[in-house]
């Protein structure tokens, strides 16, 4: 399965470099998105380096309160989900440096890692003992599970279409022209997966897990200082890692960091733009939405392929 003979220790360093670039990119991008939101609202908005200052402040807090082992492991699992997702997916196609640890079956592993962080968070937030955490996590799990359905169906349609579970090969098949992208060769699977994408980006209308005005602020209610800093890092990393998967599967991947930056930003803005014009779904509404629209489109994608 894996070609271990080709493994070189330098790859570890290259992968860490990818991680470093992606975290910093995520930090700046989320701040820029918030700044754009502020400008649209007529405000000046936060400075673009605000995320770094917040992170540093949380690390610098002096008192920490732990609610137990799982409470401690929750953010760790969450970050593991983000890092793992990025590590096993080729970030820059054709680059020896940023190929990471992708191997023949990495698509399945990526699907697993998308879910992994939420599960870890459920265990951690559950132990914190705050009712808002438990409510937020149960809502989040229900919603992510449902959003996973169209994603999985779309991805299986893709692996049928390309006859492989290797993300690198799927990206390779889309090179050459913009019309080789899955977006054009298999639009139905793309639509199914994009429904899941919008559903898991923690933005309105699917932000009932956090629901700032309702159950302040859901799962991370009890998290503070370094625990929160870990989760902030993941908040910067995880959306970018998820967008990287979508970019690789449906939008032709990226062959350079510039292309990466532009494509990730555009894809991220899809969820932002949908978020600002739609009010929040209740959890049963979002589940119904995924079952009513996501699931049939996903099944159709499989049937058409």
């Amino acid at each position: 399965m894996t070609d271990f003979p080709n493994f070189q220790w330098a790859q570890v360093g290259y992968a860490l470099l990818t991680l470093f670039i992606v975290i910093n990119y995520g930090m700046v991008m989320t701040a820029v998105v918030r700044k754009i939101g502020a400008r649209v609202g007529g405000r000046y908005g936060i400075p673009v380096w605000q995320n770094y200052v917040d992170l540093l402040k949380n690390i610098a807090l002096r008192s920490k309160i732990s609610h137990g082992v799982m409470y401690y492991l929750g953010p760790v699992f969450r970050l593991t989900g983000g890092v793992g997702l990025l590590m096993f997916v080729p970030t820059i196609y054709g680059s020896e440096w940023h190929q990471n640890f992708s191997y023949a079956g990495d698509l399945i592993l990526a699907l697993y890692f998308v879910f992994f962080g939420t599960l870890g968070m459920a265990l951690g937030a559950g132990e914190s003992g705050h009712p808002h955490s438990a409510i937020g996590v149960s809502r989040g799990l229900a919603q992510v599970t449902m959003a996973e359905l169209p994603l999985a169906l779309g991805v299986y349609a893709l692996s049928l279409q390309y006859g492989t579970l290797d993300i690198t090969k799927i990206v390779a098949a889309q090179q050459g022209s913009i019309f080789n992208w899955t977006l054009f060769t298999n639009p139905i699977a793309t639509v199914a997966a994009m429904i899941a994408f919008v559903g898991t980006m923690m933005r309105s209308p699917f932000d009932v897990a956090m629901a700032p005005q309702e159950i302040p602020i859901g799962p991370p209610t009890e998290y503070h200082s370094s625990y929160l800093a870990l989760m902030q890092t993941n908040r910067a990393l995880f959306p970018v890692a998820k967008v990287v998967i979508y970019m690789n599967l449906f939008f032709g991947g990226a062959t350079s960091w510039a292309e990466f930056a532009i494509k990730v930003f555009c894809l991220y803005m899809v969820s932002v733009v949908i978020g600002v014009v739609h009010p929040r779904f209740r959890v049963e509404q979002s589940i119904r939405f995924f079952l009513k629209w996501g699931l049939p489109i996903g099944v159709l994608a499989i049937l058409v392929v």
Partner: protein
Amino acid sequence: MKDVDDKFRKNTDPVPMREELKPRSVTTPDGQTIEIEPLRDYFCDARPKVHPKAYSKIVEDFYNWARSNSLWILGFGTGCGAIEMRPLMTPRFDAYRYGIQWRPTPRQASLLVISGYLSVKTLKRAIRAYEQMPQPKYVMGLGSCTINGGMYWDSYNTIKQLDDYLPVDMYVAGCMPRPEALLHGFMELKKRIRSGKAEGANDYAENFDRYKANQKAVIKDWDMPDYNW
């Protein structure tokens, strides 16, 4: 004049403990019988500790810079001053550009703004919110009511001087202070944090007995642990 006038109180001394806070045995849905003691089970009642500064001055200064540029305010409004905080989030004053943000949970907040008069009932909640915040934490008193009682000077049920009960880092005078005054207060607080003088949380831990005695002198129905996280 005493802070709270006892002659307006009902003659119920000591105040009986609320039913739901008494220790009791409960039968769980699966048939087990367990002993619960709400005041011990839900809270950690360890005393607050004095947390030392970072070993190196350069590191501490760097941390203080970060703390001052990332003030997270607890979304907790008492009295009429809470209405003055809302314009700060909107385009006219936009406090976000100074790194000031609002957080919904005390665990993630570093600044507690007591925005106006504080009735004894609210003082209890303010103390709990304050104690749940991680160190270092700052308190800002907004309006004359927190300084000397203001127009509630002879009220039977509001406290007059906030720093008897919580360590206050910054007062903003006025009735009500305008949002500009509030912003100015935040800027002054930032200077204080950067100079390393804003050690209210350590002050609270050092003089814990004095603060608790003051708090218990006005809060008659004290039905929580002395220190609750």
